[in-house]
């Protein structure tokens, strides 16, 4: 039962993409892709939000941390936001987040913000397929494993600090 899935890099690995789609444009476009029976890669799992402006950067980091190999955010085209300008707010956050992700060694292709209107079912297909292909070429991101390593590193560091502190305290006691 594993044609896609597992974050490990073993054989049969296939990218997992979490998508946050706004209710009015991109989610509807994905519905349209369905109604039009367009075919695209099954690697994307959509989470519906009312507006791309609702996308908290933490959602994106959380998705990576939970094993996503890519995150796609879909909103209405500029000037078309159902809530006037939520998409612009997301755009600003995306610019910040891109720099943060770059600093963390996440390749550009893994995070994508796209404007997809309710009429652009075709664009959903194209963007998802393109993203799957590019991420497949990059391979798994493997944040859950890496986070384990980071956790161990941090734990080891904390342990060392604690040891040092204990030593210091003992030293102080001796000194008195």
């Amino acid at each position, binding site marked *: 039962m*594993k044609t896609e899935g597992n974050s490990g890099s073993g054989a049969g690995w296939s990218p997992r993409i979490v998508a946050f789609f706004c209710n009015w444009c991109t989610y509807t476009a994905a519905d349209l892709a369905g109604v039009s029976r367009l075919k695209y890669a099954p690697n994307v799992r959509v989470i519906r939000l009312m*507006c791309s402006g*609702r996308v*908290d950067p933490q959602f994106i980091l*959380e998705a990576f941390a939970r094993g996503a190999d890519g995150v796609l955010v879909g909103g209405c085209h500029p000037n078309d936001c159902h809530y006037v300008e*939520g998409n612009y707010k997301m755009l600003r956050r995306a610019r910040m987040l891109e720099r943060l992700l770059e600093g963390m060694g996440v390749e550009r292709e893994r995070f994508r913000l796209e404007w997809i*209107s309710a009429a652009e079912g075709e664009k959903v297909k194209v963007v998802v397929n393109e993203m799957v292909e590019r991420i497949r070429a990059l391979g798994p991101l493997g944040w859950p494993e890496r986070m384990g390593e980071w956790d161990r590193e941090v734990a080891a560091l904390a342990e060392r600090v604690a040891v040092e502190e204990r030593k210091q305290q003992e030293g102080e006691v001796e000194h008195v």
Partner: protein
Amino acid sequence: MYIPKKSDPIRIGFYVCHCGVNIAGTIDVKAVADYAAKLPNVVVARDYKYMCSDPGQELIQQDILEHRLNRIVVAACSPLLHESTFRGAISKAGINPYFFQMVNIREHNSWVHTDREAATHKAMAQVRAAIARVPLHKPLEVKKAPINPNVLVVGGGIAGIHAALVLANAGKLVYLVEREPTIGGHMAKFDKTFPTLDCAMCVLSPKMSAVDKHPNIRLWTYSEVVKVDGYVGNYRVTVRRKPRYIIEDLCTGCQECVNACVYKKPTFPDEFNLGLGKRKPVFLPFPQAVPPIVMIDPETCIEVKTGKCKKTCVEACGDRKAIDFKQQEELREIHVGTIIVATGFKTFDPHRTPYYGYGVYPNVYTALEVERLVNSSGPTAGEVVLKNGEKPKKVAIIHCVGSRDENTNRWCSRVCCLYSLKLAHLIHERTEAEIFNFYIDMRSPGKSMEEFYNRISEEGIQMIRGKVADVFPDPSPDANGRLIVKAEDTLMGRILHVPVDMVVLAVGLEPHPDADDVRRLFNMSCSSEGWFLERHPKLAPVSTPTEGIFLAGCCQGPKDIPDSVAQAGAAAAEAFSLIDRGHIEMEPNTAYVVEGECSGCKSCVPLCPYTAISFLADKQKAYINEALCKGCGTCVGACPSGSIVQNLFEDAEVFSEIEGVLAD
């Protein structure tokens, strides 16, 4: 009845829909149900052929009672389609409608994927997310707000007129705003209508004058909507009223001013007759114009342009004093609860198909121009004549000009085949000319349309199945302006050169060039062709994604008069059903501030486009006015301390979904 208690443990009922073979054909629904049964908190997991059917809904209701369920997850089609159906069903069984989550495994899965194993696997991930999320759902109440009973109808063609009359007759106050100086739209330009061949104006003009006289209709012609604020039930609309240099209330439509104008003869191209006739700077657009009020064209009137006219028109108007050269553009704000958009279409500009010679050869006409020629109130008083004044002996009608063509517009404009048959009949009737109809496919669906086609073909009209490649002048010396129509007769398999005196281009229907601006104004969507998008092609064909805004007529797509009127009636009924309920129901997905956690940083305050967030200076905390909040969640996404919560989309709920879709 079983009434759930707060302290009850979470008990989830899970249902996966086959949707016939729509879902079950691609996804192993049994496997999905078995999988869900093993997930935490799931008490019942079933698959059923059609969950949205009555037995499907009853199945859920029975399980709620029998198994004391307090959360429901349905994996079926898009929540945009049936979320409200299931919320209604579970609320009837006594649990809060928001203790529900829908999983879209049709539009987002079975319809877009082909690999059964991958699709089933994805469905499980989607289901897992919903089952992880739903225990966190809070009981919420639908919010109600009063609705303003007034309606705005934009566009005064047959669709707008009909919608306005239906609502006004029901006692609602209707603002009808039309861009042109008169209502009537395209239909007012037609001579006869297919398939009955009844006179267009005979049907339309009583409706037009009913609009003019109706106590519940405020008719604003020569006006445009420039701004729309607010939301369903409470729209604030700004309308620009362009100056027509005539005080509408004082003008009686006597046209003394037109007769008295310093231009003794009509000199300027007449817009209503598509430039085929002439008018003066002061004019009535056409004899039955509504409102029956003249207007002054600022581009051609000497007084408006230079201020140096003798103003014989003012003299002729005399004591009525209806002419006002100082009139200025006016912006008026109106308050309405619902809006019907009926802005219509434009006909295809055949300059884009230069091989048909429109604008080059004088006797190439568009079908709409020919409508004016055959119309007895048109520029030739109903005579179909060539530019040299002679009657044509041979006429070619070219179908599908700007329709069904990769190079221009890909869609079928639906009305051209039938109006071409109508024009063939009318031209033949007036001139006894031989008529050649060049068509790709003859499309005559609809009530009485095929019979109409048979009737016209029996009248001796030549039907040639073939797309015209070229129209060029006859090179022979005695040609006298004759044109050659070159086409392949695809039934005979030979190339034809047909000499004709007149060519009629059956131009297709297109969205207005400013459809995109209009769409933005009303927060609607356009299809890729530029037609306004309905919320659902079958289930909500006159609704738009924006609550309280409805569509009627050709702005939604090409259609004939009966369909436009039917759609206008439907749009009026939708508006009426909203108004008559007296209130609108709003999704409770608004946001609120958890005061104890707010640090008072004010980052959220400027983010809200509805100014719903204010800063309480005394407490040093942000505050959200939920009556103004529209539930986008932008402030929630931006709050650095995570102290704003959006109902239905709480952080914890979204995080559990993220975890759910990835936990495999």
